[in-house]
């Protein structure tokens, strides 16, 4: 009854599509079922207002795996950068902004010591990030499994660290688990510089600069650049949806079927193995393999059901930390915002509002206790500067990550959203006076909105906090970190597995490999 050769992929996010494409290339009969009316998941371009389009969740590409883009021929399927290698501009109230391009100061003034230390800091972080980047395409080793491939991948991880050299390896081990605030304090003087660098370490995370694991979070963010992501920090033409459109085209051209508007209500079982999925329409699809791009909690607790797992597995999944803290702001503007001291051409760079690391930490403190930050930190892009497909001529669209907003605010979500939008516009206006008058339409997505709209439990970009206890062979949980879940035929291919979030695709590819390896072994 169950069709052995068929694989169902739940969710057409980037990882689901990557997985579908690789499975289809390997000759599997692949059906992707997506709840939304279009593909993309959290890498999607949506209408904001008539004529305005915006990357509705993820808004920058910096992790997309080069090997995957090459193997799936994403360029051939229409993916191209509207602008590659964005600089980062740390906005200053007084207009003395800092413009950073990797480890070099492109413009602005820094104390001599900072100017001297910056390239070394950047190079070292990239070297460390490279250790993580090299794990992206490997299945994490199974602890105590003792299999040859497990030993190999554990050995490779060790070797990658050893190759850093003795002193850098010591430094890597010293800082990997600590917080970015302390590391920056050791290295730099300029508050503005420290603020901008600290923000990189906490974007999308439920962490403040003084939280442990913020260095790890930074290294994860840099890991794509470290292993040579094409285009660096970039804006795809057509928004982030262009990536998933290209992936969908690649999957289809390999023979995969993609069905949108088809929410899955449950994963069906026959004995101890999956037998397919049931859709909201009542339709049942049968397959011997079900790969879920949904987050771990949704996949295992909602679609499968805790009763089909053993107690400790269900317990660990329930305690997988997955509450998002990042909100997403979208503004349709009738003109280019005028940031004090910033030329119009630089308005298209990546702008950050984080005047110092304390500012971010103070913002985090409030959210930690259930309130939206009164002075949020922001990562802003105005992609329409480079990409005229996103807004009518002369008009612009602004997309910003705003931190922090708790997943479950003390106030009602509606009240918190309205107040946070107001505060965020207030902060923006300090740097771009008159911005409010340019706003044609606005949208603020709190983590609870992200959960609802993108079907990510907890509204966390990475499907779950990226921290040492939820990393590599512990992601999402020990014993189920090699994509195969503890139910026969069920796999996880999303950011909840190794190597985690960011629009990268490696989890999808590795999961496809795990499916194919398991079939070969059986």
């Amino acid at each position: 009854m169950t069709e052995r050769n068929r694989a169902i992929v739940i969710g057409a996010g980037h990882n689901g599509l990557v997985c579908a494409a690789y499975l289809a290339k390997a000759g599997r009969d692949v059906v992707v079922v997506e709840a939304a009316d279009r593909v993309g998941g959290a890498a999607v371009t949506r209408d904001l207002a008539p004529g305005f389009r915006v990357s509705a969740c993820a808004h920058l590409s910096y992790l997309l795996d080069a090997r995957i883009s090459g193997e799936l021929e994403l360029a051939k399927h229409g993916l191209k950068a509207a602008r590659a290698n964005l600089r980062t501009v740390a906005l200053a109230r007084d207009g003395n902004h800092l413009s950073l391009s990797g480890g070099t100061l492109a413009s602005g003034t820094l104390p001599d010591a900072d100017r001297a230390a910056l390239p070394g800091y950047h190079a070292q972080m990239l070297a460390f990030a490279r250790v993580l980047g090299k794990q992206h395409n490997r299945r994490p080793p199974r602890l105590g499994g003792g299999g040859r491939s497990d030993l190999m991948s554990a050995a490779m991880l060790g070797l990658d660290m050893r190759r850093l050299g003795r002193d850098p390896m010591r430094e890597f081990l010293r800082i990997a688990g600590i917080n970015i605030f302390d590391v920056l304090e050791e290295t730099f003087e300029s508050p503005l510089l420290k603020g901008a660098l600290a923000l990189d370490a906490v974007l999308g995370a439920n962490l403040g600069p003084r939280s442990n694991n913020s260095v790890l979070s930074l290294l994860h963010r840099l890991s794509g650049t470290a292993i040579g992501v094409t285009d660096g920090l970039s804006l795809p033409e057509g928004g982030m949806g262009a990536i998933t459109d290209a992936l969908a085209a690649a999957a289809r051209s390999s023979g995969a079927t993609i069905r949108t508007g088809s929410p899955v209500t449950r994963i069906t079982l026959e004995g101890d193995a999956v037998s397919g999925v049931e859709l909201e329409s009542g339709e049942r699809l049968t397959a011997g393999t079900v790969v879920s791009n949904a987050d771990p909690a949704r996949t295992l607790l909602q679609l499968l059901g805790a009763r089909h797992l053993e107690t400790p597995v269900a317990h660990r999944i329930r305690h997988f930390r997955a509450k998002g803290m990042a909100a997403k702001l979208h503004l349709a503007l009738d003109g280019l915002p005028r940031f004090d001291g910033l030329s119009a051409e630089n308005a298209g760079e990546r702008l950050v509002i984080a005047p110092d690391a304390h500012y971010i930490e103070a913002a985090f403190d409030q959210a930690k206790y259930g309130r939206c930050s009164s002075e949020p930190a922001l990562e802003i892009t105005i992609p329409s500067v480079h990409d005229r497909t996103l807004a009518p001529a002369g008009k612009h669209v602004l997309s910003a990550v705003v931190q922090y907003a708790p997943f479950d605010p003390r106030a009602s979500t509606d009240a918190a959203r309205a107040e946070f939008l107001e505060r965020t516009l207030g902060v923006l206006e300090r740097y771009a006076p008159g911005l409010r008058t340019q706003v044609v339409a606005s949208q603020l997505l709190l983590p609870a909105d992200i959960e609802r709209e993108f079907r990510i439990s907890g509204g966390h970009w990475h499907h779950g906090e990226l921290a040492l206890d939820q990393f590599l062979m512990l992601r999402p949980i020990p014993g189920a970190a090699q994509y195969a879940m503890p139910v026969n035929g069920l796999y996880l291919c999303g950011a909840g597995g190794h190597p985690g979030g960011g629009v990268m695709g490696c989890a999808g590819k590795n999961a496809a490999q795990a499916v194919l390896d398991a079939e070969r072994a059986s």
Partner: protein
Amino acid sequence: MKHKEHYRTAVYQTPFHPRTSLLNVRNDWHRWKDYTTATTYFDEALEYAAIRNACAVFDLTPMTKHRITGPDALPFLNRLVTRDVAKIKPGKVGYCVWCDDHGQVIDDGTIFHLREGDYRLCSQERQLDWLSLSAHGFDVSIVEDTHDVAALAFQGPTSCAVLKAIGCQGVEKLAPFSIGYFPFAGTELMVSRTGFTGDLGYELWIEPARALDLWDALFEKGANHGIRPMGTHALEVARIEAGFMQAHVDFLPADQAIRRDRTRSPFELDLARMVDLTKPNFNGRRALLEEQKRGSRYRFVRLDIEGNKPARSSYIYDRPRNGKVIGTVTSAEWSPSAKANIALASLHMPWGRPKDELWAEIYYQRELHWSRVMARCRVVEGSFYDPPRRRATPAADF
């Protein structure tokens, strides 16, 4: 315990304490879970003799009890334990074990299917935490009601006659592992034909307020049937004769083990019959399937040992001299009823096969002088003492 001040009481007395304390002429007590409980009342050997020749009463109240109800009670229990609970029909009782996700036994106990969909789970250890963790995703209510149910084990050949005399009409028709309900002292007395002695016997369950009425009725009507109270020591001899294992003695609860090799799977406790791998999911199933493939580490055996010196805590060797240690004895007694020197033991695989030579190294003391003897052991299947009256239905009066 529902009241907030419970922690002020270090050790509880059971509802039977006003009677047990009078009968405990040796004033010999120990602590069982939160309760003070009799080790021996007057003479261990005579208390034991009552179990096998008359009837004996054991205060079972401290045993951990849980009430499990709700629409998902059955699927919840089936995910919890290794056997198929659907086979335990209403009015029936089943022995069971439950495992962690490594397939290692956390505890053993009994499931009472009191009435349709209404279950009682009795366990050796406190299990509320594990049961609550396991309840996620099930529509089930779990209440630990140890303190709300007074319980007695009433064991021995004349037990049925005494129950009839206190008003349990038709109790003789109860088959082993069955439950009956009888009106008693204005309340309901639940009687299950269960026990830890391997003999004809019952367990009696009643609301605490009526506990003394039950005790008094048993001793009044039992006077001519040789009724005696029994303490833990007498019960211990009977349970080893029956071949029953006990947590913390014959196996270590997996959730309390620090060292992985100290725990045992059901297969390693001779409980394969308690494992139904055709159930699609239960705690430990994946690990047990794996164990089936790669083989178990240990074998649990019942041993009949030469001589009359109990092999307590003995090492088991593969030959009498210059042999190697292949296991240890976990429980040992001289069996007065089987007239045999018996033991329960855990052996490393593959030992314990029919033709294997097994030798127990027994240390014993005579007038403070220690001696050592190597005694040959024979593996025995089933109980050491298994009288037909244990299963005969209707139960006879004797």
